[in-house]
């Protein structure tokens, strides 16, 4: 064991539940094999897996990098919020990033750029836009037969993980990022901030105890971006890409989903009342957009009126 271990600058908390194959790809996308311009010592990945009959397990979680710590938890509620708060409590880094859904893999510049953003502004909020793999949102595509096999074929077509930026060629913006890059949108699957700020926010609100945490992630995102003295950096040339895995809102069929949505919405309204609009914060754009991102910039421009 090393006598001196440098404290990682960033701890990335990834929550896994019933998605071993997708989570393994996500963890590969977080490894230094794939992330550019960073080494294992710069950051750590904390995987928290809530028990299920389809476990990722420690061996698969840690096989791609030496900076991964794996925790297997028993969870009595159907929410990831407790797992997130548990994961963040394990963090050694000066900053934490929350990835509520382990099925979302990243592009190769996320970690380096997040670290750079915190060099500029240690108290910043940093996030990346969200995408769905496929040519339609997965909650739509699932009704038309989209499944894991179709997705595997798409990933094969871009020879993933050779060039992670080619994910853009097989993806659409996720529902909560339809507003594009020039506004804050509703949420992100990579929400990063200082430990200090995480503590000041009190972490995830543990009352969100329903399916998938309901709107807990939107709530965290809004509270963070609206926190005083919190410049918001959007890594607009990077993304998180949702893989199909039968998640609550992205992988169930419409009729069933509508019932669940209503339930989650009712709970969210009970906690937040009507104060649920997306944070009204204009992002500082930061990143080197790959040519495959240009079409999403064009789309985003169409979504905003000149101010």
């Amino acid at each position, binding site marked *: 064991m090393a006598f001196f271990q440098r404290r990682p600058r960033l701890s990335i908390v990834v929550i896994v539940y019933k998605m071993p194959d997708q989570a393994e790809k996500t963890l590969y996308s977080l490894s230094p094999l794939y992330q550019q311009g960073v080494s294992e010592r710069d950051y750590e990945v904390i995987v928290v897996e809530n028990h299920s009959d389809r476990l990722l397990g420690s061996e698969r979680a840690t096989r791609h990098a030496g900076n991964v710590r794996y925790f297997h938890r028993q969870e009595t509620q159907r929410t990831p919020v407790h797992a997130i708060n548990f994961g963040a409590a394990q963090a050694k880094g000066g900053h934490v990033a929350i990835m509520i859904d382990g099925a979302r893999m990243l592009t190769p510049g996320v970690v380096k750029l997040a670290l750079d953003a915190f060099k*500029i502004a240690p108290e910043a909020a940093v996030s990346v836009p969200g995408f769905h793999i496929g040519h339609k949102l997965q909650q739509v595509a699932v009704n038309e037969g989209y499944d894991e096999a179709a997705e595997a074929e798409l990933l094969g077509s871009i020879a993933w993980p050779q060039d992670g930026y080619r994910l853009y060629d097989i993806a659409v913006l996720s529902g909560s990022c339809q507003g594009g890059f020039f506004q804050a949108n509703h949420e992100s699957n990579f929400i990063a901030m200082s430990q200090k700020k995480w503590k000041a926010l009190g972490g995830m609100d543990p009352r969100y105890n329903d399916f998938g945490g309901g709107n807990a992630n939107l709530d965290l995102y809004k509270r963070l971006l609206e926190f005083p003295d919190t410049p918001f950096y959007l890594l607009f040339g990077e993304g998180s890409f949702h893989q199909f895995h039968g998640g609550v809102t992205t992988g169930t069929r419409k009729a069933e989903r509508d019932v669940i949505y209503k339930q989650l919405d009712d709970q969210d309204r009970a906690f937040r009342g009507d104060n649920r609009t997306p944070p009204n914060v204009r992002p*500082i*754009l930061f990143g080197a957009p790959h040519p495959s991102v*240009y079409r999403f*910039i064009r789309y985003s421009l169409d979504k*905003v009126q*000149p101010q």
Partner: protein
Amino acid sequence: MSRPLLSIIVIVYDMPRQALNTLYSLSPGYQQGVDAEDYEVIVVENRSQRNMDAEAIARLPGNFRYFLRDEPGVSPAAAINFAFAQCRAPFIGLMIDGARMVTPGLLQYTLMARKITDEALVVVPGYHLGEHEQQFHLSSGYTEAREQQMLEDIDWRHNGYRLFQISCLSGANPNGIFHPFMECNCLFMDADVFRGIGQADERFDLPGGGALNLAIYRKAAMHPRTRSFMLAGEGSFHQLHGGVTTSEVEHRQAILDRQRDQLTELLGELFRSPTVEPILLGKIPGPAMRYLEHSVARGLHRVQRCKERNEDMYADEHEKERNRQRALEY
């Protein structure tokens, strides 16, 4: 006063009104999110019939240091080197043409890039005030009076980003930010890098320095210890002042040919715009969105062209990276 983080060089010749606007646009009241003590502005004016009003400069808030010098030649190269010798900061900005005013976030985002790395080479897109590039000002009936009126109409001192509304992209970057730039009229780099590229090569002795600025930009962009940052939501805006290549003058083509020949001779090769890949940083103000739209359209076109020709869009960037790796291995 403690040592500033940034020293900005502004060269002035025969453009007192325009240069004062430029200096105002660099002052702490106009620049947002920066402290006056973070930077200094070194103004070097080559004497002409129309010099700046030193008292007016002294009245500006912030740290302006003004030098009026006699220049026997017709190039700003020596003035730049003189100014560089005055700089106290380890990070410098170079504005070879004092007629270019800037937007209010320029210094804030420049200093942010510097926080990320000392290697930051900060590049700001260039614009011309007016609907058309100013080398066509006679044909389009554009005058200094018209320009002053437009500036007043947008109340630019209080609405710096409205400069985007009354401008067009300059010929140095007509295709926007996803194409390589030929030059940059508002460029920031580490002082050691500027020293390393030989500062301003005084052999560029043509009026206005000829293609000196292109040479500086190329050498800085190709320097192994630079990483390009592009402030896509900021700009430098050229005011009409009868410049050598930025106003409609007779024999403009002959002047450009001569400049190009000298550039080739002094570079030792044909000039190419450096294909470095910039990291974009900043907010995009509403009035700048239309330029981003143009950049994206032209960028998509470039992607297609590079694909057809099997060209690497960022060949110079990748070459720099390979050189870096090789250097690390030794």
